[in-house]
């Protein structure tokens, strides 16, 4: 059963998830009106590339649509130990954006884990995937992702993006909004 959010109360929520360093915080900042709320703390087990901090609560950003409606953007912590936060944050979301870092050892495995974790809360028909850092690591290719995910859902949009560019974040949201609209036509 599709759980539509209560739009009458003005609540419209999108969740960004993915492994640490995939760009969730960056993506939310790109489309938020003002400074986003962050719960980043220093990493105790060593830095990941240039990243020395990690989100342990959630990222939060807002985009005011009009007097009555605000788009709320939530970013989850990336590590598996914060899975309880994924369950909490996914409640009531109308869409999910999964961001993947293609330079990691098993990015397709990462994607499968996040899709499975969020499937009980947000339907796959409202999920968009952005693959980042493909210029540094072209493999696996988008074709590889589509082939591997064919058994789960061949029709999830999987798009190469660089979330440091706002237009790429808007691309992900354009696809997500189109999915939601078409789903009910």
């Amino acid at each position: 059963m599709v759980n539509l959010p209560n739009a009458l109360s003005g609540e419209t929520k999108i969740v960004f998830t993915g492994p640490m360093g995939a760009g969730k915080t960056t993506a939310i900042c790109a489309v938020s009106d003002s400074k986003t709320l962050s719960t980043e703390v220093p990493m105790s087990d060593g830095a990941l590339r240039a990243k020395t901090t990690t989100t342990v609560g959630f990222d939060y950003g807002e985009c005011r649509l009009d007097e009555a409606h605000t788009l709320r953007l939530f970013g989850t912590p990336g590590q598996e130990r914060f899975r309880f936060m994924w369950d909490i944050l996914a409640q009531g979301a109308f869409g999910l954006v999964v961001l993947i870092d293609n330079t990691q050892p098993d990015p397709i495995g990462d994607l499968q884990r996040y899709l499975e974790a969020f499937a009980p809360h947000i339907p796959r028909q409202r999920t968009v995937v952005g693959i980042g850092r493909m210029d540094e690591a072209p493999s696996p290719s988008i074709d590889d992702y589509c082939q591997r995910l064919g058994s789960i859902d061949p029709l999830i949009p999987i798009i190469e993006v660089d979330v440091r560019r706002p237009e790429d974040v808007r691309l992900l949201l354009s696809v997500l909004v189109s999915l939601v609209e078409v789903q009910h036509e």
Partner: protein
Amino acid sequence: MNKTVPVKPAPRVAFALQCADLLAQLRRDTAGVVSASIATADGLPVASTLTEDPEIDKLAAISGSISALASALSRQVGQGDPDRFILESASGTIVSLKVPGQQGGMVLTVVTDRNAVLGKLLWDCRATAVGVASSASQLAA
């Protein structure tokens, strides 16, 4: 003749053992304490009076999250970073204190039943946090 040479534990392990001792003492000496745990600010376990690994790991992660969220709330309303927060329910109390230190410091989380006396509990928790911070600074030195 064989001589047994005591093996000195690695500094990190020694620190964890010191923390475990401090937590055990807290649990022993403070009425109502059900469990006491120390986690890193990013949710990794350091020491705990709990015995089940999954429970220890989960509590460490939640402690890290809730401490960060409490800080975010406090900063959002203009009250700066909190030193501690208290959750009270019909079953008891949970106290969470920040332990200053490197790499964001740590979080001490103490769970009590209804027998705990809040003032004594906070006093003893504070002493434990100071002890942990002191051990941590010796480790860093």
